[in-house]
């Protein structure tokens, strides 16, 4: 059985960054990817805007991925594509069982980095009445049809949900000659980034309807029409506001959820707010030696932060020495949609810590404070906080000499616009 220090599961932006970073630390690294090519979802994200934070350039997804793939190959890191992890066993270390065209192989490793990305919510998760014809796609599936396979999935469609991929697909479908009747969002504010509302919808005169949802599908073999209904503040449909729109496809952009199948099989604790694993500042989960990063940890809006978390997790996994960790959790108030990491391990604190958070609602002139035993240690002001736009900051916490009795709290205050 071949031995590794770090096995990275997933060859997208998080996994590539994690593998490169662990390799830089001198670890023996193996990366496992189930698809034929490295790059993950970036392969089909052909629009630009990737890498603004990291490179100060607006790259397309494939170009951004290519920079990491090149470095990955220069470093001669072991990898295996078209390979699927079928099980992980905890022995003295971990045994990772994989299957590919060569059959079943086992590898032994000290640490594992889960870089499995996230999945789209599907129509089954949003309960729409009516028939079950073909023509209902997630935005990511429609994106793969057009950008990878070169096939148009629709001539005239309705998009449900205003997530970024849905907005980007509205533009992409329009550029390729399809008619996008509108983007319908059940909430009263858009889920996607403001710039995408402008450059993907307004530029192409695609209407956005807030507080509207799809309530019924029509059609036998293929979708013929959808029923749209207005919803109230509690997102309940308002009787009498139904409208039928003829279309041959319904494209869903109704949210992303971290992929936790392997994490759950390892009894990793999941945070109900991020829907990904709870972790410490090293991105280690409650299972010793199991790390996580990227969209498997929490759904990011920028790939630059996915790469950053991969690098941090890769470095931490490579340096991981089995030692009991002592933790204190970070208490956060309800103004946060979520706050990462959920806990701090307080022995051997190294350098600065990276935090990520989202606000629960739109806040103007917001103040985020971090306190130890009620005493403020950090204050940060934000002109605008919006749930779709993640914030991040760094802080050297070694200076506070934390002990197990200390209480760390994060609080957020702001004005409702």
């Amino acid at each position, binding site marked *: 059985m071949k031995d590794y220090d770090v096995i990275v599961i997933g060859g997208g932006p998080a996994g590539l960054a994690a593998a490169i970073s662990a390799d830089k630390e001198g670890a023996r690294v193996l990366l496992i990817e189930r698809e034929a090519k490295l790059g993950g979802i970036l392969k089909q994200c*052909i629009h630009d805007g990737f890498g603004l934070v990291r490179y100060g350039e607006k790259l397309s997804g*494939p170009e951004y991925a290519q920079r990491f793939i090149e470095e990955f190959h220069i470093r001669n890191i072991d990898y295996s594509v078209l390979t699927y992890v079928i099980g992980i066993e905890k022995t003295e270390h971990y045994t990772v069982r994989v299957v590919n065209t060569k059959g079943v192989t086992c590898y032994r490793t000290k640490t594992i980095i889960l870089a499995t990305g996230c999945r789209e919510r599907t129509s089954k998760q949003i309960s729409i009445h009516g028939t079950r014809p073909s023509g209902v796609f997630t935005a990511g599936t429609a994106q793969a049809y057009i950008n*990878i396979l*070169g096939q148009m999935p629709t001539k005239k469609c309705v998009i449900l949900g205003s997530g970024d991929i849905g907005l980007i697909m509205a533009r992409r479908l329009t*550029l390729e000659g399809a008619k996008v009747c509108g983007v319908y969002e059940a909430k009263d504010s858009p889920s996607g*980034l*403001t710039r995408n509302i402008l450059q993907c919808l307004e*530029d192409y005169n695609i209407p956005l309807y807030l507080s509207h949802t799809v309530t019924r599908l029509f059609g036998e073999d293929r979708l013929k029409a959808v029923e749209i209904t207005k919803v109230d503040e509690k997102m309940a449909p308002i009787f009498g506001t139904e409208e039928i729109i003829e279309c041959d496809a319904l494209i869903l952009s109704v949210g992303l959820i971290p992929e936790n199948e392997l994490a759950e099989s390892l009894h990793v604790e999941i945070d109900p707010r991020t829907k990904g694993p709870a972790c410490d500042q090293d991105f280690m989960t409650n299972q010793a030696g199991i790390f996580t990063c990227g969209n498997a940890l929490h759904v990011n*809006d*920028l790939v630059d932060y996915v790469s950053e978390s991969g690098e941090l997790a890769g470095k931490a996994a490579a340096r991981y020495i089995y030692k009991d960790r002592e933790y204190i959790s970070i208490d956060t108030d309800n103004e946060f949609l979520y706050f990462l990491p959920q806990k701090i391990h307080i022995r051997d604190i190294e350098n600065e810590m990276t935090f990520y958070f989202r606000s629960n609602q739109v806040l103007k002139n917001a103040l985020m404070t971090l306190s130890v035993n009620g005493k403020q240690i950090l204050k940060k002001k934000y002109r605008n906080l919006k749930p779709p736009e993640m914030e991040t900051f760094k802080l050297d916490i070694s200076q506070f000499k934390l002990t197990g009795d200390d209480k760390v709290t994060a609080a957020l205050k702001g004005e409702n616009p």
Partner: protein
Amino acid sequence: MKELVCIDCPNSCQMIIEEFGDEIKVSGNLCKRGVEFARRELKNPMRTISSTVKTIFPDTPVLSIRVSNEIPKDKIFDVMKEINKVVITKPVSVGDIIIENVLGLNSDIIATSNIF
């Protein structure tokens, strides 16, 4: 006075633009890119586009491409027509020029992925 949201980066700065003849005064922007964006947006809005071109290779039926520089917003669909005429018959690498100076707009159509 006009309100504009800068789409240059994810900060999405909400800006207020005051025009004094040819000069403009911008407020609400976090960086100077906001001023440049406002100036272009008022006179000649520019955008980037990304798309794909057909290939003859069964494993990679389409190749992803983008414009190397921004193009005028009102030329987007004209450029799409040019993009849709292309069929790739030889291997290409990231950054290779697929159409040089498309429609004389001082922007090339470049490959954003590889075909080996």
